[in-house]
């Protein structure tokens, strides 16, 4: 066994692999913070988008339009370089967070996923049929109950596949945060490349890890789909 590991250590790819894994926790940290916040905000923004209040729905529509029309890289740079150049922010308490590339990354990723996610959830909410809402009303549900017991569960179940897509896009998007000197997997891979002059081995090692992360994400979404769509399961009896 010892021999095998020593033999494998001869290969650059194998050594790189363990160096890149050291950045996995930084990548995961970005996701663990931005995805749950993004999920809750997406849901709220989607509800605001379909609300009858013109001001709220127009404002959210504008926000979604700007975020979806610009590359994530611009948003990350705007937050990291742009906000840092504003004197008012440098002197406020926000600077404690925004001077760290990590929190800039979290902010950019959250803003981005909320725009895409709320558009996805809006589709789900609007797909709830009138009859389902009417049956809820006939049972005497008030608006909150209607939302909690009928609209949101049905909407979430319907959008699971497309929200799963968005989650995978987010895993991929974390690599862009490496451009703000934050050392996650892509950043480490780039450092290895600068050290060893062997780009292919460095980036393939990182690529395998990203593929694995995305594979886990796909399985997770599949499990959720299985769990929350019991009426679609094929019975084994």
């Amino acid at each position, binding site marked *: 066994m010892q021999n095998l590991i020593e033999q494998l250590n001869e290969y650059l790819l194998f050594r790189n692999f363990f160096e890149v894994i050291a950045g996995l926790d930084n990548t995961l940290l970005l996701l663990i913070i931005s995805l749950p916040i993004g999920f809750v905000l997406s849901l709220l923004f989607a509800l605001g988008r379909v609300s009858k209040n013109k001001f709220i729905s127009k404002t959210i529509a504008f926000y979604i339009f700007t975020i979806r*029309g*610009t*590359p994530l*890289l*611009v948003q990350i740079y705007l937050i990291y370089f742009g906000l*840092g150049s504003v004197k008012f922010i440098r002197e406020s308490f926000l600077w404690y967070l925004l001077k760290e590339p990590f929190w800039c990354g979290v902010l950019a990723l959250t803003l981005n996923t909320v725009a895409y996610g709320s558009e996805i959830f809006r589709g789900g909410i609007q797909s709830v049929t009138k009859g389902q809402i009417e049956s809820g009303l006939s049972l005497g549900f008030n608006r909150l109950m209607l939302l909690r017991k009928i609209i949101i569960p049905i909407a979430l179940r319907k959008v699971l596949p497309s929200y799963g897509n968005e989650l995978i896009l987010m895993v991929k998007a974390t690599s862009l945060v490496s451009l703000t000197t934050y050392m996650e997997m892509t950043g480490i891979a780039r450092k290895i490349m600068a050290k060893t002059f062997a780009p292919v081995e460095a980036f393939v090692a990182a690529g395998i890890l990203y593929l694995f992360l995305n594979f886990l994400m796909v399985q997770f979404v599949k499990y959720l789909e299985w769990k929350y769509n019991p009426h679609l399961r094929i019975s084994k009896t």
Partner: protein
Amino acid sequence: MLKFDKLVFGDLGWGDELLIATLMTLTVSVLSMGLGLCLAIITVWAKLITNRITRLIANFYTTVVRGVPELLVIYLIFFGGNAVVMGIAKIFGYNKYIELNALTIGTIAIAFISATYSSEVIRAAYLAVNKGQVEAAKALGLSKFQIFMRVMGPQIIRHALPGIGNVWQITLKDTSLISVTGLVEIMRQSRIASNVEHSPLTFLITAACLYLFLTTFSGKLFKALELNYSKGYQ
């Protein structure tokens, strides 16, 4: 803080540089979208013919490229592409050093990414065309080429256009990533300008507006195209 007066054209501002950079972004997007569509058609063909090996290769390609961050694909092609090209050249007996320019590499990298998305769109569009129509065309004595040009082709385009429009938007936004290779497009130019003028906010907001303009405008164009191709269904 905000120096929008630096956006004028001429020697005093960055207006003309940014305009050229915008054209560069458009060029890269159009080239890589075109190349990506060609690649996508090959991929779809490889997936649909009854050959297990080609299907395996095509599936491997789309799964891997879609599961890996775009930035990694660009780094891999940018830093590793030269070696591959030189290796191929060596087979043909050419031993000198070859360096691909940033435009070529960027176009190829983005095309590889965009092809994976377009291939799914085109595959779905191909499968959406009713088989009975091909049989009807055969019964009328149309040749294979005629069937493709007159029956399948237009319908595939109609089914694929909305999806292709989405892929175009993704491609356009992905071109911002090739600024890491040193190609002077919107992102790179605005970074250069903000470093010179010490005003990142101005030029990054300008870059965002330029991208917003490009995506909105091209989105309108695709809407018009969609309308044109679904004339028979209104």
